[in-house]
């Protein structure tokens, strides 16, 4: 909420990023300082509205004096810090993070930036070998796994989970950025219906013992969909249109309105294709919602198009 911000002067910190003298407010992260200076740093698990979990490691930068690379999304700036965002070490790690993800996850519905970064960094996911066939991942026992199939690259490919009328979970597209878990939990919804279960390459987003969503604590607020960066979580309407090859963003119109259900005043962005609402989002920078909605605002739109 912006409201009235008392004018306190944040102490300014001077640092060097890519040879450029930069000033940033004390407590700002390296990422924020980079963005203010117009330097692009790729991010996947970072979102302005969530506390950084720094797990994807695509935003790592080199800080002189630090043994390993540091995650720019969570490391605060410090006076006289010397940061390199495009050194050989940084580019190697970034390329490999992108390559490891692209070789194991279906990124077909991830944002355009992701594909641009993959290309710009010269990631070559194909050198890990042809993809292994989809596998059952929900009951993997920690500390045990089948030996890799000769010559094939393991992936997270698996069947789409469709257990309710609102949204599908296509974990073959999941990069395990933790955003949905954060949004479902302490960062927004406080429902705690899902969490990261298992470990290592078998780690996965799961309800308790993988019960179906209707048997879980899920309240269908859809805030997990709102933060998912790869389209692993998707409205049923969008999923089905895509499956039929009819999803076409160039034909879509986005109309901002206010949710009619209660007095909170959440802004809704209605995504309309062929005069049908196909998806509802809320702007991340909106004072009231920070992108979050409840089940009514997110999914209760059928009445507007004559449904029941």
């Amino acid at each position, binding site marked *: 909420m912006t409201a009235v911000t008392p004018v306190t002067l944040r102490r300014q910190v001077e640092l060097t990023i890519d040879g450029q003298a930069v000033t940033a407010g004390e407590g700002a992260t390296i990422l924020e300082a980079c963005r203010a200076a117009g330097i692009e740093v790729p991010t996947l698990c970072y979102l302005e509205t969530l506390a950084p979990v720094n797990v994807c490691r695509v935003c790592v930068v080199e800080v002189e004096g630090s043994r390993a690379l540091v995650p720019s999304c969570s490391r605060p700036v410090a006076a006289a810090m010397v940061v390199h965002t495009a050194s050989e070490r940084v580019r190697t790690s970034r390329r490999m993070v992108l390559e490891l993800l692209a070789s194991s996850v279906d990124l077909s519905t991830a944002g355009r930036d992701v594909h641009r970064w993959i290309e710009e960094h010269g990631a070559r996911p194909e050198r890990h070998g042809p993809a292994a066939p989809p596998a059952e991942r929900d009951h993997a026992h920690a*500390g*045990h796994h089948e030996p*890799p199939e000769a010559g094939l690259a393991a992936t997270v490919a698996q069947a789409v989970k469709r257990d309710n009328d609102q949204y599908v979970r296509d974990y073959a597209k999941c*990069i395990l950025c933790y955003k949905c878990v954060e949004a479902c939990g302490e960062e927004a919804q406080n*429902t705690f219906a899902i969490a990261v279960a298992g*470990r*290592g*390459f078998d780690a996965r987003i799961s*309800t308790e013992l993988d019960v179906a969503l209707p048997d879980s604590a899920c309240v269908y607020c859809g805030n997990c969909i709102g933060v998912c960066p790869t389209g692993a979580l998707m409205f049923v309407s969008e999923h089905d249109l895509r499956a039929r090859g009819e999803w076409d963003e160039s034909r879509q119109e986005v109309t901002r309105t206010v949710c009619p259900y209660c007095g909170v005043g959440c802004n809704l962005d209605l995504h309309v294709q062929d005069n049908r609402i196909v998806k509802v989002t809320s702007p991340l920078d909106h004072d009231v919602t920070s992108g979050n909605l409840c089940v009514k605002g997110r999914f209760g739109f059928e009445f507007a198009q004559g449904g029941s």
Partner: protein
Amino acid sequence: MDLRTTEAPPSTAERVAVDSVLGPPESGWFGGGRTALDGHVAIGGLSLARSRRHLLLPVLHALQEQVGWISLAALGYLCTRLDLPPAEAYAVASAYALFSFEPEARVVVHVCDDVACQAASGGDPTEELAARFGPAGSGTTVTWRPSPCLGHCEHGSAALVQVAGERGGCGSLAPFTARDMERLVALGSDLELGDLTTPLALVPQAGTGPTRLLRRVGRVDPASIDAYRASGGYRALRRALELGPMGVIAELKESKLLGRGGAAFPTGAKWEAVARNPLRPHYFVANADESEPGTFKDRVLLDHDPYALVEALTVAGVTTGAEKGFVYLRGEYPTAAARLEHAAAEARARGLLGDDVMGSGLRFDLEVRRGAGAYIAGEETALFNSIEGRRPEPRNKPPYPVDRGLFDKPTGVNNVETLLSTLEVLTLGGAAYAELGTPSSTGTRLFCLSGRVERPGLYEVAMGTTLGALLDLGGGVAGGRPLEAVILGGAAGSFVGPEDLGLPLSFEGAREAGATLGSGVVVVLDDTVDPGAVVARVARFFRDESCGQCVPCRVGTQRQEEVLGRLAADRPLGSLEAELALLADLDAVMRDASICGLGQTASSLVTSAVRRGLLGGEHGNGHAGSGGGGNGHGGGGSARQGR
């Protein structure tokens, strides 16, 4: 929060197991019968939930031990009791290897097939089991599974046996052969924990040399506090109370004691940072989650000298202003758990723990918490998460534990060997301790000798002793065969070769050679051991033990195992050069961009094997011994792979 758990009620056994840790339900809000009053009270909220969450792991242990697996209904009941979302409880439980979520055989035998046992047996120790008793996981009453290192490496084979039932639990067998398995299968449903005999520790120096940390092992009754005191026990605590916190810290600084857990951080500086931190309360944790393949020193010390850790943790507590300490012990050490609990109870009864430690007016007590099969829980911040009932995932550093550690409070955390070394510092005096070892690596160090060595076991030598001298103490390579290589430091360490026998075993000596002492692992490989198989096992280990939090380690350890599999099968993708370039890239991203030490060292042994030419079939045949000069870690080693 509004909890939603399954409506299926727990079985009686499940309820009893959960209540055995938590006591009977407090009210209808926590799984008990509803009373009229329940509808008129408001309870707890988030603060209450947070205050109970640390009991999650003990409750899961109780279920696994008494029921044999964790069902949805059991999970629902424990979540109601702890006010915890079931998805989170499952997330935590499923991160540990020793918990199951499907009905299991009553007896599960976890058989070590890790590097030390592999080297000792000259092959895969589970092959015979598979041939005789069916594949892993088969068998309805008694079943077996492969396991990572169980910390009995000096025996060359080992098993951890989980027995489910009212008086369930686990026990260790080492050595462990197919004949032992035969006996377990024959006992079947009659098998009781008491049928498992406690393995001995092999400490060849016992009673011979001037050992310090090992002086009581095998000679003093580990169950008797009087025997402990008669052999010098509790002198260090008395001295610590005389000196006061700053006096103890001054001695530690003068001793130049460096942490034995891997990072070699100065112990005095760590204790001082905790002691001086104005935030309260403080905690002190003994990291006994020894899981590095090839390491068994904590087990030997805790099985045979448990009072020493109780005393050392008390010293740390009263020095750093912590009134509560935890021993985080690996779940695979049932004997150590029992002996530590017993030692703590005796110490409490004698006023050496509790509200008035040794009459000083200072308060300190400790709890033993058991891990459940997760190497990553040995990383200090993952360890805090584990105690707190969260997933054992490392935290972002900074903040460091001395500022925000366990329960977000200033916390000191030391490895068992480090803590026991502080007792030596106090009894000898800091200056005299600093005379031991080398000027920069003071004191003595424990080394776990295993594999193809004549007398495997735990050895204590002064820092700076050469690798060759240590191997001589162990009687050299078994059967006088030629030494091929040594795994120094553990799975996260590196290979050294016959030309490195002059390497001084000190922090600086190892560093100069591009190696690490790690957790004191020395696995000896002779010419009968296939280094490719050893490296493949290590790659499998890291693939299994990665917590999965960050991309470099989660996917990198998978890809690393795949590459090694292709190389072992001599089916490289593209060319050998392409595969080695891929390994180098995986090494770079894991080392440089992983969150914690696990990912940062997951490629260490593999990279060292590549540099020594131990991989790559005929192409990489620049053998450890036959390569020209150098220690195998420099540019010369890589150049051999360059063609």
